[in-house]
Structures are given as structure tokens and as C-alpha cells.
């Protein structure tokens, strides 16, 4: 009964988190709650890795969630303390040790799909792309699964890192959150760029990267934002997000 109640509370909180558009400012994102024990976090990672030497630390507090770090020999994972989902997983025994490529892109995609399927990680409704990434003394295939609504990346993504020499999976990320389909942006990219330059204090910067994404504020309210990367005339960079409905901007960092 205790677990049933805990489960109902979790589901209810999750629903509130996803539908919290317009939540009162100053409130805390419901997803900051801790519903999962460290033992459950370890079990989740053990199920995917077979590792028997795992230990969890945390929960730690990040900007929009709390999480456990789960570590073992050649394994590191971050587990969401609200949902119990694995957010990131590194399987370093399978990591590339060189730049040999013996696997085709299609085979990398197949390996990723088989891995996700084997562990019941759904990709329903998501589109897959495969990218070859050069890291100098190692390379990887990154198979990314995502969905866009009205051009916006919604918070339901997976990525799988494949060793190009062996086809083995050595990395996984899963990020999912209950959301409602976003409306079309009413702020154009040009308008957002101007607002972003203002936020960054750049008078004559250039837009380098942009994306339209669904995200959440500190209270858990759903947002639709332009995430922009800008470079100023002095060569300095800034990452900003601009609300695609209101035009309000926020600095994310400088480089």
C-alpha cells in the first residue's frame, strides 16, 4: 500500500509538472522532489549494465532536477531522482580506443535500436539520425532520436553512442518530460537574435547556432524558447535563450 501511494503521488506530481504552464513564479519545479531511493537508482543501472559493483551518491541538485550519480568499474550514470530514469550512462569498457571504423552508419543505427529495444527504452514517435563524430584520437557514431512539433524540439530525446570499431554501445542519454505540444513561435528568429544580442550586451554580434526548443522554468512551467549562440565583435561568445512567445531573454553563459 505504501508503494502504491508513493506511486500515485509520483504520477500526480509528474502530471502537474508537465501541465504547469503558468505556474506561479517563485514556486519550485515539482521535479525537484526525490521519489527514488539510491538502491533503486543502482538497480536501474545494474539492469542495463550487468555491473555488480555499483554504488550511488546523492541525490545532487541541478538546475531543473535532482539526481543520483551511480558509479562502478567502467560505468558512470546519472539517474533522475524524481522518475528513476537513467539520464546518462557511460559504458567505458566498450569505449573506442582509436579511430578505426569497421561499422557502417546503418549498422550503428541498428545497434542503437537493438540496445534500446532490449532494455525497453521506447523510441515511439521519434525520428533517428546518425552522425559520425571525430574526437581526434577516438571517434563515435551518435544515433539521436528526437521529435519536433511546430519546428520545436520537444523534451523527449535519446542518444546512443556507438564504437565505430566494434559496433558496441558505450554511451546513452535519455531525456523525457511530460509536455504539451508547443504552439508556433510568435517571435521570429531575427527578433529573437536582436533580443539575444541585447541580453548578451553585444551591439554587433553574429548568430552562430540556433534552435527552437521546449524547456521549463524554475517553477516547472513549460516554455518555448529560441536557444541562440552568438559571437561578438571582440570574439567573445554568449549562449542565450529568448522566449519564442514573449521575447524575454536570459543569458545562459559566455565563452
Amino acid at each position: 500500500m505504501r508503494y502504491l501511494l508513493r506511486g500515485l503521488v509520483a504520477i500526480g506530481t509528474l502530471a502537474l509538472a508537465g501541465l504547469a504552464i503558468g505556474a506561479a513564479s517563485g514556486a519550485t519545479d515539482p521535479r525537484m522532489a526525490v521519489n527514488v531511493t539510491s538502491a533503486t537508482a543502482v538497480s536501474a543501472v545494474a539492469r542495463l549494465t550487468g555491473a555488480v559493483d555499483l554504488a550511488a551518491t546523492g541525490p545532487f541538485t541541478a538546475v531543473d532536477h535532482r539526481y543520483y550519480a551511480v558509479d562502478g568499474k567502467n560505468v558512470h550514470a546519472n539517474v533522475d531522482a524524481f522518475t528513476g530514469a537513467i539520464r546518462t550512462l557511460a559504458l567505458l569498457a566498450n569505449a573506442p580506443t582509436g579511430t578505426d571504423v569497421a561499422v557502417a552508419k546503418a549498422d550503428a543505427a541498428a545497434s542503437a535500436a537493438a540496445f534500446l529495444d532490449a532494455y525497453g527504452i521506447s523510441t515511439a514517435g521519434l525520428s533517428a539520425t546518425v552522425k559520425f563524430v571525430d574526437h581526434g584520437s577516438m571517434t563515435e557514431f551518435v544515433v539521436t532520436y528526437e521529435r519536433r512539433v511546430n519546428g520545436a524540439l520537444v523534451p523527449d530525446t535519446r542518444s546512443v553512442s556507438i564504437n565505430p570499431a566494434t559496433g558496441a554501445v558505450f554511451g546513452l542519454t535519455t531525456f523525457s518530460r511530460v509536455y504539451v505540444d508547443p504552439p508556433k513561435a510568435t517571435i521570429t528568429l531575427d527578433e529573437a537574435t536582436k533580443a539575444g544580442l541585447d541580453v548578451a550586451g553585444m551591439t554587433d554580434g553574429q548568430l552562430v547556432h540556433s534552435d527552437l526548443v521546449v524547456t521549463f522554468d524554475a517553477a516547472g512551467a513549460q516554455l518555448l524558447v529560441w536557444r541562440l549562440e552568438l559571437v561578438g565583435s571582440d570574439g567573445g561568445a554568449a549562449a542565450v535563450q529568448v522566449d519564442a512567445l514573449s521575447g524575454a531573454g536570459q543569458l545562459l553563459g559566455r565563452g
Partner: protein
Amino acid sequence: MRRVRWVRRLAAIATILGLSLTAFAPTASATMYSPPWADIFGSTWNNLNTIPAATNFYNNLSSTYHRFLNQNSTATTAMGSAYAQSDAIWADFGHGNAGFIQFCSPPNGATCSTSLSANSGVGIGCGSPNDCLSDYPTQIHHIKYMLFAGCHTAIDANSGAPNAGNLVKQAVYTEGVDSALGFRDLIYFGAPGTGGEIWGTNDARYLSQSYTVNNAAFTAAQDVQNANFGWGGGYDTFWAIGGGTKVMPAAYGS
């Protein structure tokens, strides 16, 4: 600790005197200490502040290294005999671009932006307070891990320059450093969850747990994604040569 710091100061003074006597001739050889030295640099420039990220790297690097946190040093200082030429680990967090990474010297202003370039073919020159890796053909080869934590620091700056004007290539291929790592895209510092502070913390932590350079960078980049709901903030574009190197147990490079 106090004694070693005093020795270091003396070494720095000796370097200055040596430089004045030998004009532009670099010091002849590296110095190795026990425990091995690690110098970590952070700086302020315009609105960018990389000191928190450098501090996190410093705090999480194994104490089996003799660690030094340096704020707003010049590029010339960072490459000096009491710094890079005595280091097993050398890490700079700063503004960067293809072929160079930036240092500063307080107060902010005209003297702030000093740069370490790959070689004289790129950047703003090699004269003090700027510097170039190519000025140290024999003096920094004992560095085991050299980190250029700035935007685009692993990109070729000039196809006509030696090693294409790339900091990472120059450090390993010509100066003999065991491993070097930079980034091929923009990376960010200074806001909660953005990346630099998280990546700096965890790269040092994983290196100290005997991860290879590649595996530490990869796993730390995943931690940035964890903090940013999947956005890598550029840290997933790490690019290293000698990425199979481990910095543990603490030791100088070959």
C-alpha cells in the same frame, strides 16, 4: 606547503633574471618535482569569468599532484619555468579561438587579453606577455595532460602554419606533450548548469579516478548534458590527441 611555494617564487624570480640575461632564448630544460606539479589557470575578460571552472578543476584533481590555482596570469607566466616547464598537468580555462587561448593580467583592460598561440603563424605573436607553444621545443614535453578549455581551441587556425596552427596538434606533435585536449565548437562558462563549471569539476574527478583523457572528457560531457536536459553546451565536441593517456598514478609524462 609554505616551503614549496617559497621555492616556486624563487624559481620564478630566477626565470625572470634568466630571461633578462638570455634575451629571447628559452630555458633549456624542464624541471620535475615530487609530487608532480599541476598548474590550473582561470581568468576574467570582459564579462567572461572562467575562474570558477578552473577552481572546480583544481579542487577535484587528485591531491597526489601538487596543485596550483592561478588567476589572471599572463600567457608568458603560464609557460614559464615555474609553471608549464615544471608541470605534469597544465590546464587553462579561458576565451579561445582557432589557434590560441587567452590569458589575462589584472587589471582588466588593455593588458588583459594576453594569448598563448600554437605558433607564430597564428594569433597575435609570441612576444611577452603573449607566448607561443612553438617557443618551447624541449621544455614542456614532460607534461602528461595539457588542457585548452576554450572555444574552438582544437580547430586548425591556418593550413599554412605548422601543425595547421592547432594548439592540440602543436602541443603533442611538436612539443612532445603526452596528451592535449581542446574543443571544436563554442563552449560556455558562468551560469548555473551551463557547462564549464560542471565539465571542469568532472573532467578532473574522472581523470583522478584513472579514466583515460578521452573517457574522462566523454563522461564529463555527459554530465553537462545531464545538467542541461540533453544540451551539450559544446563540451561534447572535445578533441584530443593522446586520448588514451591516464594521469594516474601521478607522474610526469614521457
